């Protein structure tokens, strides 16, 4: 019960009141940052109240990209929702695919063959690499580095997207996984190319750390900014690198051991301060762990079928019931909750988007900081509006 007072959003109002005590209404500046703003990562809006440059109140406003994804899912067959999941978090379509496939497989009790599991791990970890690298690029870009870190990140990301293209036919909208396996097998020579890309990745990370790791300006801008306490992080349902930067050891790859993650030797980096710098560094360290997983997976991948022979592509109708399937997407816990009524379309198709839930604590982190910090904090949450607004 002790954590209750700290974690409620009433605490924010209290802090707001304290900060504005003795300041008349006319002295506060209300700024509507977004929906068209260079660093809101799409069409996101923050209604900010400023005292000078200090944020005293901040309300996130979302929904500009709302297309009622869940309703589309209810009106489409199970299979037809798969390409729509690509468009949720459009940077990581493969992990979205996996989460949805996992939920449907849980719902219908479908097994996934060994090779397909390995393919899923490889593609998901590659997705994590490319997502995290572009996130740290965007984060530093938001702090005013004129594109250089982002371009380095994109240079590496392109290599991974090329791999995705030659495997799935598309760079970003991969639409690769199916209920009970994956759509197509690896083309000839793909694994060797992937190994080369993965082998070159630590070099990029070293380069990146050289560029910014000890940069005094970056440290001054990020250390101690937007600290998120352990209790609040758990209570507010924050997941992913944000949660781990606050020192909570919770990685669904380790907790649920979905797929075949129990076979790989990797560690979960944890931060102690939960500030922007920790989130930035946790992502870099997570990439290094992902490289470890990739090395093992690409070494061990067995031959065999990639689809469960019992799985049906056409006319798929799971029995009535419900299932919640979740994975550790690069942004946090991505869950799909499906209710089947026995027909070809899900009765309820719910997405638990990590970046939407992570936005809950934006105000908590921003109040009392400068307006420039809100940008850095928002960048460190790593939101993708396709997923927030659905």
């Amino acid at each position, binding site marked *: 019960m002790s954590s209750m007072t700290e974690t409620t959003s009433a605490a924010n109002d209290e802090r707001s009141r304290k900060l504005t005590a003795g300041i008349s209404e006319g002295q506060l500046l209300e700024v509507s940052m977004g929906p068209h703003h260079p660093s809101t990562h799409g069409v996101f809006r923050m209604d900010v109240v400023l005292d000078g440059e200090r944020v005293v109140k901040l309300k996130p406003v979302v929904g500009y990209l709302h297309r009622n994804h869940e309703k589309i899912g209810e009106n*489409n*067959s199970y*299979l*037809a*929702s*798969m*390409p*729509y999941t*690509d468009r949720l978090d459009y940077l990581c379509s493969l992990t979205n695919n996996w989460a949805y496939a996992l939920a449907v497989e849980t719902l219908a009790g479908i097994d996934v063959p060994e090779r397909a599991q390995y393919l899923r791990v490889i593609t998901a970890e590659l997705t994590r690499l490319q997502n995290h690298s572009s996130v740290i690029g965007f984060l530093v870009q938001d702090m005013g580095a004129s594109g*250089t870190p982002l371009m*380095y990140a994109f*240079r590496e990301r*392109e*290599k991974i997207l090329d791999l995705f*293209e*030659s*495997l*799935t*036919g*598309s760079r970003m*909208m991969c*639409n690769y996984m199916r209920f009970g396996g994956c*759509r*197509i097998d690896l*083309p000839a020579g793909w694994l060797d190319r992937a190994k080369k890309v993965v082998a070159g990745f630590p070099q990029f990370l070293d*380069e990146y750390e*050289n*560029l*910014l*790791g*000890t*940069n*005094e*300006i*970056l*440290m001054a801008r990020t250390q101690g900014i937007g600290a998120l306490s352990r209790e609040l992080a758990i209570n507010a349902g924050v997941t992913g690198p944000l949660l781990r930067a606050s020192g909570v050891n919770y990685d669904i790859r380790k907790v649920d051991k979905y797929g075949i993650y129990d076979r790989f030797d990797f560690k979960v980096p944890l931060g102690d301060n939960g500030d922007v710098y920790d989130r930035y560094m946790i992502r870099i360290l997570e990439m290094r762990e992902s490289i470890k997983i990739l090395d093992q997976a690409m070494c061990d991948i067995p031959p065999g079928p990639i689809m469960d022979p019992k799985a049906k*592509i*056409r*006319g798929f109708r799971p029995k009535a019931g419900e299932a919640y399937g979740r994975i550790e997407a690069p942004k946090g816990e991505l869950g799909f909750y499906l209710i089947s009524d026995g027909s070809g379309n899900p009765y309820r198709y719910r997405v638990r988007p990590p970046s939407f839930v992570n936005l809950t604590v934006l105000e908590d982190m921003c109040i009392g900081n400068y307006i420039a910090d809100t940008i850095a904090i928002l960048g460190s949450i790593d939101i993708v509006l396709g997923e927030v607004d659905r």
Partner: protein
Amino acid sequence: MLGEGIVRGLAETARNFLGSFVSKERLTTVQFPEERLPQAEAARDFPFLVYDGEDWQAGMRCVACQICEKECPPKCIFIEKSKDKKPDALGRAQFYPARFDIDVSVCMSCQICVEVCPFEAIKMDTAFELSTDDRFGGLLWDRQKLALSDAHYHAIHPTDAAHTDELLAAEKAKAEARTKAAVAKASPAPMPQPPAPAAANEP
């Protein structure tokens, strides 16, 4: 805080600045219209309808079963079944699409139609420079625009096409065996049934 980190960063950018003049690894830009990367075999853009032989109308594999129309996530396919039947590649009388329209402004290149098609009749093209100045007519492709030869399919997706050919050959052999058995059982031969996968899909 003495600026070591800044100096290291400056050294790193200098390295990249110079490296971009010598190393192709660093300067990864492909200058598009002049330079083109080879397209991946799995590349997919918009669907096309495969036809065998020379005449696109006679050789069209599509039998207007409308599975793709139903499964298409953004519902961009429209099919009108023919009233009459025409012989397909195996010589059996089949329906054919009297209309087959795809609205490529809506199509999201997801390849679901290809996967659900039991007749290997719809495949993904790799052409991507498709801009047109006619927003309405130019992006609504009819069956004539969609029809592309099997040779084209072989050219863009050789591995896939070889696999498809195997499947079709197996199908053909099965159908022939069935016809033979039917002939042996009783002449005159009954109307050949559509191949097995299609039957499996009837709700």
